[in-house]
């Protein structure tokens, strides 16, 4: 058994609509190692959420997902039927969603959610736990920093704040003890203070479970503070991937460079507007013939307009989808 937990080759995903398929994810290659935190960064529409959902096979029915290879812990996910996949979810794979409020069943109390998850986890791990569920619930809520656990158990989701709910959600994941957690912008809807607390929880979570986390975000700084590696997505492709330090300190793709610039500007308190990358994501039905970033790229040249760049590998697992990176590397 290697350290590679997830291995994905040429993942594509799109949605059928009015007889056509609109591509969202266009050939993503990804390996995730056990226990690592991988950040996926991109603006909305870049395909990062769809990638995450595709990983757990949670896309709606009108989605079309294909891949050359999708392996989780040695198991071929492509040949797995829906029931088999369902057995993996919640047991070994889990996901945290952007909107904690909408993630809870509004008709049920917090305690019910916890109880349901305990049952699911015990069933997945084929164990029986003697501890009364209420006690377990109290303990796990304490673990995620909810001090008034006893009361919280009896409350309905709508009676809790977003931050509290995100904590509860993390508690649920904690109870499930999965090997891989996909977290889709889990802190986006929270204010700065709560966000910091939740991020700390994530770090705890990762440490306690030694689970791999795919942390999807649009915020470079958040990613940098948490992740071991970072993948930058643009228009359904990973344009740059590498160790956080490498990517952050020496962004290679012009898009990554833009993101880092923006992030630094924000951190310095400058208005981000100037530093933002001008332009918009390409329309999926009218993709440019060459590099997908070319229309917005200030460094584009002739070749970029006619040829689509392949990932150019670098040191420490670095890969960049840009002809410039290829040229820079060539002399050495």
């Amino acid at each position, binding site marked *: 058994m290697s350290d590679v937990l997830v291995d994905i080759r040429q993942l594509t995903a799109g*949605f059928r*609509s009015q*007889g056509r398929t*609109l591509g*969202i994810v266009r050939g993503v290659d990804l390996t995730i190692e056990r226990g690592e935190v991988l950040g996926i960064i991109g603006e909305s529409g870049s395909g990062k959420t*769809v990638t995450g959902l595709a990983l757990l096979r949670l*896309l*709606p029915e*009108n*989605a079309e997902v294909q891949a050359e290879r999708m392996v989780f812990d040695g198991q071929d996910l492509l040949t797995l039927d829906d029931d088999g996949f369902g057995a993996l979810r919640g047991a070994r794979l889990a996901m945290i969603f952007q909107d904690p409020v909408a993630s809870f069943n509004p008709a049920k109390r917090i305690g019910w959610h916890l109880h349901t998850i305990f049952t699911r986890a015990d069933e997945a791990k084929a164990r029986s736990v003697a501890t009364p569920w209420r006690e377990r619930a109290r303990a796990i809520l304490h673990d995620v920093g909810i001090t008034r656990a006893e009361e919280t158990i009896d409350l309905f989701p709508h009676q809790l704040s977003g931050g509290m709910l995100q904590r509860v959600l993390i508690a649920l994941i904690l109870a499930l003890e999965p090997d891989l957690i996909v977290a889709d912008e889990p802190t986006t809807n929270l204010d700065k203070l709560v966000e910091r607390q939740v991020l700390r929880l994530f770090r705890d979570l990762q440490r306690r479970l030694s689970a791999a986390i795919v942390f999807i975000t649009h915020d470079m700084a958040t990613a940098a503070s948490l992740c071991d590696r970072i993948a930058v997505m643009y228009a359904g492709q990973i344009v740059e991937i590498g160790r956080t330090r490498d990517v952050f300190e020496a962004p290679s793709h012009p898009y990554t460079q833009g993101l880092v610039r923006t992030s630094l500007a924000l951190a310095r308190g400058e208005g981000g507007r100037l530093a933002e990358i001008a332009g918009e994501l390409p329309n999926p039905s009218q993709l440019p013939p060459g590099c997908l970033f070319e229309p917005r790229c200030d460094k584009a040249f002739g070749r970029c307009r006619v040829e689509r760049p392949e990932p150019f590998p670098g040191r420490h697992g670095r890969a960049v989808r840009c002809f410039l990176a290829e040229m820079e590397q060539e002399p050495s």
Partner: protein
Amino acid sequence: MNSKFQIGAILRNRLALAGLAITVVVILAITLGAALMPHSEEDMDFVNLLMPPSLEHPFGTDAFGRDVLTRVLIGGRMSLMISLSAIALASVVGTMMGSLSAYHGGWTDAVLMRFSDLLFAFPSFVLALFLMVVLGFGTPNIILAIALVYLPIFARIARNMTMLIKEEPYVQAARLMGRRPLSIIVGEIIPNFSAPLLVQASIGVAFGIILEAGLSFIGLGVQPPTPSLGSIMADGREYFSRGPWVLTFSGLAISFALLGLNLLGDGIRDLTDPRLRERAAP
């Protein structure tokens, strides 16, 4: 993941399409078709009383030897006319009532909406029956009764929508510019919820046809010799065992027309209510 879905989507569209087709066929039938019929809906033929369906009379003849098909077509026109008038009346009055109520708030709101709630709390057919007894017989009274039954539905929609829209900046601006409330309501507010009104109206027309038929069926219908679908059915019920075709065909005709209207109503709602459209992306 599955390709059947798409077929389903088309099929669902097809249902709406079928609704449109049926409605068009029905409208053509009660206008052009009725005009082309060789028989008159009123001329009695005492030789051919209660004749079963034949080539000459596809739906048979009634107790007066009148061609049932012709009467169904003309009656359909009458029923539709009654229902359309009633719904038009209900939508105009109800919308104005709801909008004014929401716009002014306070006592106006309390009184108008309590009245609307009250109308709404009676079973629709019971209310219509009561109104017919009070108002007396005749087509204008049927229209009035159906309109009163349907009024609160429009009032509610209008009130809810106006509540939302009246806070919009452009409405506030119009108010600051000193425009009269009525002009603001008619010019700025109502046009902004014409879509749900339209959906409700299309459903209402079907509802009105059923209500008219029900009233006619228990003997509170339009005045003879003018036929309406309900009065033809009421006649047919009188001699159901002797000439079952009269009730059966007029009943099937009304069901066919309502099928079209309902499918069409569904289609319009799907088109205008974005929440019901299948989303292209999560």
